[in-house]
């Protein structure tokens, strides 16, 4: 399994590189780097990225990287975000990460300068609305990261609406006797969406509110080093509102898993 780190500038992207390498180590994967330069433009020196295999490409960045992901069987693509600038900046998603999120078949790790760095991945947060298609992130988290000594927090944010998808399990709308309903719901929620054969610990956490800010706050409060959520890659029609919010506010790196609707 391989993490491919898209590096545009070794200095600017040093947090990206560090987090991606830590992620790879936590999952037991390899890490490689790719730098795409314009024709005739300067490349990166290997010394800029010690102990990291560097692939040097020329051309349009998103296209070249997407092609490499598909061809080289990359399992996770790591891309840097730029900090949102100015009061009216609405997105920290630059044009290359934006293009890659829509095209990459592999999960994408997004790191913004200033985020809590990913080191040993002792705790990760997986926001879940409780629908099967949005649980792709949970499956990815379990497959890659479930291990002893690591906690995966399944965060369910309760909103007035409920997913329409068959097989969904949002927080119960009817609670006859609280002391029985919630323990039964948590057990079913875990059984339905989590599957860790390696003895890792799952914890279900329930919050109420608007998903974006609640997830960011919970990640900060719990010391999570990674937020894993699924997204179709499109902002059209209001989709991806949570992703959009977290791009700007998440206190730690985001791992976006391609798949169903936004996780929350």
């Amino acid at each position, binding site marked *: 399994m391989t993490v491919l780190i898209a590096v545009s500038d070794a200095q600017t992207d040093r947090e990206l590189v560090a987090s991606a390498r830590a992620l790879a180590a936590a999952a037991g994967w390899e890490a490689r780097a790719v730098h795409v330069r314009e024709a005739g433009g300067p490349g990166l020196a290997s010394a800029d990225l010690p102990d990291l295999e560097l692939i040097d490409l020329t051309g349009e960045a998103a296209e070249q990287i997407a092609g490499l992901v598909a061809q080289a069987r990359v399992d996770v693509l790591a891309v840097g975000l730029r900090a949102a600038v100015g009061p009216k900046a609405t997105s920290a998603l630059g044009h290359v990460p934006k293009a890659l999120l829509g095209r990459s078949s592999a999960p994408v790790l997004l790191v913004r300068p200033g985020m809590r760095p990913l080191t040993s991945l002792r705790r990760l947060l997986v926001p879940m609305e409780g629908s099967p298609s949005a649980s792709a992130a949970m499956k990815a988290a379990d497959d890659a990261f479930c291990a002893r000594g690591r906690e995966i927090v399944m965060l369910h944010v309760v909103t007035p609406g409920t997913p*329409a998808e068959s097989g969904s399990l949002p927080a119960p709308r009817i609670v006859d006797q609280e002391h029985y309903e919630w323990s039964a719901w948590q057990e079913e929620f875990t059984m339905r969406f989590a*599957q860790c054969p390696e003895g890792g610990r799952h914890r279900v956490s329930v919050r109420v509110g608007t998903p974006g800010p609640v997830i960011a706050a919970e990640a900060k409060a719990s010391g999570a080093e990674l937020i894993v959520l699924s997204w179709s890659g499109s902002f059209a029609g209001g989709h991806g509102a949570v992703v959009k919010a977290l791009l700007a506010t998440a206190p730690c790196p985001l791992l976006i898993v391609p798949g169903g609707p936004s996780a929350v």
Partner: protein
Amino acid sequence: MSEDIRRALDREFAVLCFDWDGTAVTDRRADAAAVRSRVERLCALGVDVAVVSGTNVKNVDGQLKARPDVSGHLFLFLSRGSEVYVVGPDGPRLLERRQATAQEDAQLTAAAEAVRHKLVAGGLDIDIVYDRLNRRKVDLIPEWPDPPKAQIAELQERVNARLARAGMRGVGEAVDLSRALARQAGLDHPGITSDLKHVEIGLTDKRDSMRYVLRALLEGRGRRPEDMLVLGDEFGPVGDSEGSDYLTLIPELSRSTFVSVGVEPNGVPPRVLPAAGGPAVFLSILDDQLARREAVARESFPAPTAEPAWRFAVKGFDPYREREVETWLTVANGETGTRGAVEEGSAASTPATFVAGVFGDGTGDPAVRQPVPAPDWTGLRLQAWGSVVSLANGELLEHERVLDMRHGVVYRYWRQRLRSGHTLRVRTARFASLADRQLLAVRAEAMPEEEGGRFVWAAAVGVSYAGGATKETEFQRSDTPGFVARTRGRHGGGHVLALSTRPAPGSPVTRYLEQARDVIGGRLEPGDPATVDRLAAIVSARTRVPSTETARRALARAEQLGYDELLRRHRAAWEQRWRDADLVVAGDPADQQALRFSIYHMISTGHPTKETVSVGARGLGGMSYFLHVFWDCEIFVLPFFIYTHPETARTLLTYRFRNLAGAREKARDMGHKGALYPWESADKGVETTPPYGYGPDGEMVPILSGLMEHHISADVAWGVWEYWKATADDAFMAAMGVEMMLETARFWASRASLGADDRFHIRLVVGPDEYHEGVDDNAYTNVLARWNIEKAVEALNWLERVDSGYAEELRRRLVLTDNEVDQWQLAARALVDGFDPVTNVFEQFAGFYQMEDVPIEKLRPRPMPADLLLGREVTLQAKVVKQADAVMLCHILSDEFSDEVLRANYDYYEPITCHGSSLSPGIHAAVAARLGRLGDAVEDFKMAAAIDLADNMGNAAAGLHMATMGGLWQAAVQGFAGIQRRGGALLIDPHLPPTWKKVSLPLRFRGARLQFDLKRHRGGDEVGITIERAPVRLILDGEEQEFRAGTYRLRRADAGPWEVVTR
């Protein structure tokens, strides 16, 4: 074989009766393996086989050696009518033996010796065989020890020649002589027979055997003589004496079919068909009987009803939803409930079997009284073409499970293409017997589709995926093929599971050992079914583990009947129950299904006779709520049973009566008098509500219901009163009901306290609306408390009128004085109820009107957990209602409050009710319908139906919502059909939803059975009523009238009066 004989044999016989020597075998030295295998197969198919012979068990069983899998189908009638054996897996067991008295023995000897004396006097050498049971054999030709049947002609010639030397005409005269001398010796009815070599003088003969067959295998098993085939080889005369099988032709069996396979040199009597051919033809007749039954068995795998309105079908396999599906497909019978998990298991499966009434101490946090689940009895593992068959092996081609609600059976149809490329089909049919509640069964069939191969079923017994309060389970190997599992609860009850797995009749598979495992299998060709029957018995006890023998006996009952007969009786029992319970809605298939689904599960969960169990909040299909009993039973589910199966209603109330001691203890512990029923009840009738629990985020929350939710005592009293008024069961009321009402009334009188305002108050309670805890003067609680006291006094007055002696004894036992009763009534009259006669609205509790308003849009969409979405602190201070509270009060006391009061409270509380409880929407639907608010009623009805059935909420994963089901029934019957009790009469005021073209339903009321058919007709309502067994009082347009047994048609235009169109 002649055409007549073929025609006579062209049918299945339920009983095959045959002679041994000469019929089934040529002689005593012949190899009987061919007979043995056929006899065993016939028994496995449920045929009764009777061997009738003059010889003894050592000879017959020693040669036949048949060992049917199940005892009760093979019988040996031996020693010429003196002995009866039943043969099972362990060999023959003596059932009856006619034992000669000493006098009779002496008489038999005297008779035989007199015959010998006579013949010796004629110069013949004669022996006597003395050692036969109840007879003596006079050997007429000792020099020929063992003449074969084939030489019967020569034997006859030589014997007659010998007898001629003594001056006798032949064997016939020897028989006559023996009869006369036997009578002279004192034997009044000797059995004299001859096989030419001997004359036998006995106390019994084959007539006695045939009469036993008639009694035990025909009449005793509900059959007729024409259901039996009798095969022999000597019906006709042998020489000048009767053939040895002649005596089987008793008059009572004149309609049975008799066939001779013998030579019959002198012809056969008119009743007998001569087939000849000896044992070879005998075997061919058995083969024909086998082929007929095996063909039927192969083609008759049980199938669900084809009627869509009775089918609850689940297609495919969705691991996300599988736990909900398992709950939906629970098969239960009030004694046990088994989740609908797939037999072979899967990563998503949570198989479990729950046993009603068996609890133990849990060890979780907090420690709560929990059920003790039984081991999973449904496990069957299939291997085909060498690989394990599962949903994960290869590709799922087809998968459908159908709950046949009409007959209480869950069917499964599954086709899979394995990774190896082979395809197979699997079918199962599972049920928990409603006819014999200790018994459960599943039949499983697997069949290769395109290519043959080896199929092997292995039985598995696993642990229920349920946790629980099990202390230990001990598995024991059983003598019959299967297991016995003894389970003990922690400081509680226990149960024993006994189960067996056998090849199903007609399936070409056998049992054998494979690597020390007991398996059933064989090599199959495409279309051959590998079918097994798994039968289980569960016996339980509240405070101990029952004996293993009890479970074995129960299992033996199942095995004797066999799967097919168990299924037939089970289906018949369900048909019987539906006759008085079915609710037929024309025009709205979804509502029809929701109602039948609810009724099915209520019938499945209520036990009609076991007074130590009740209906838990989540039924018998899931561990949620630990099978604990709440007010859900009396207020929501009990009305269904009162009006469709009062016997069950009575038993549910008897559960509460038996637990009066626990209720008195709780009242006492809380410093009150009388009986305070526990909020949550398990097996001991004491409070089992945990003091704390864990909220959505794992935070500890105190649980106050056990301390403060006291309305349950009045709810039980309400159940008692409603039952009594609807059934007129005065015996119950006198023996139990009055005491329950008095003790709960006594509690309320002591619970209420006099305030500074000279009014009585009930403070610090939790009402049905659990968002507000520790409130004062909850209207539901106070009004019901007052009602409880009033009705208790009324009940006592009634008892004093009808049985003053018992009333006095009861008063004495309860130490109840007139003064105390006066004090109760004083408190009741002065009890605050929050009612405003101007607005007609009950203030839900003191200070409710001063609470914060919440914009209605914040309480939508419903159902809505306001305490979660708005926060506990907000709901505690707000006019937000979790569930029907004041509205519930107006509904259950509908004969106390006018429509104006009902309307006022509904209009006030409905907008601010979140339906955050499953108990709520059904009741709101009933009330809205009654008020003619059909839009609201339908919306609430569908909301209730979706609680367990919606596919995007997962509510049913850990159990069914029994109160919702009861609420749906109440909405349909009391709301939409508008049939409600008022005093001792039924009010009829339908408000059918637009999509309900017609609704038909039966009700039982005060000894009568009524069938209602209601529909909208030309801008009005039309009601057909058939009344049976007793007259009924009906209320039409406010006027009560008596209607005698008969059929009536009522009609009314909208807003118009009722008109009785036909009587």
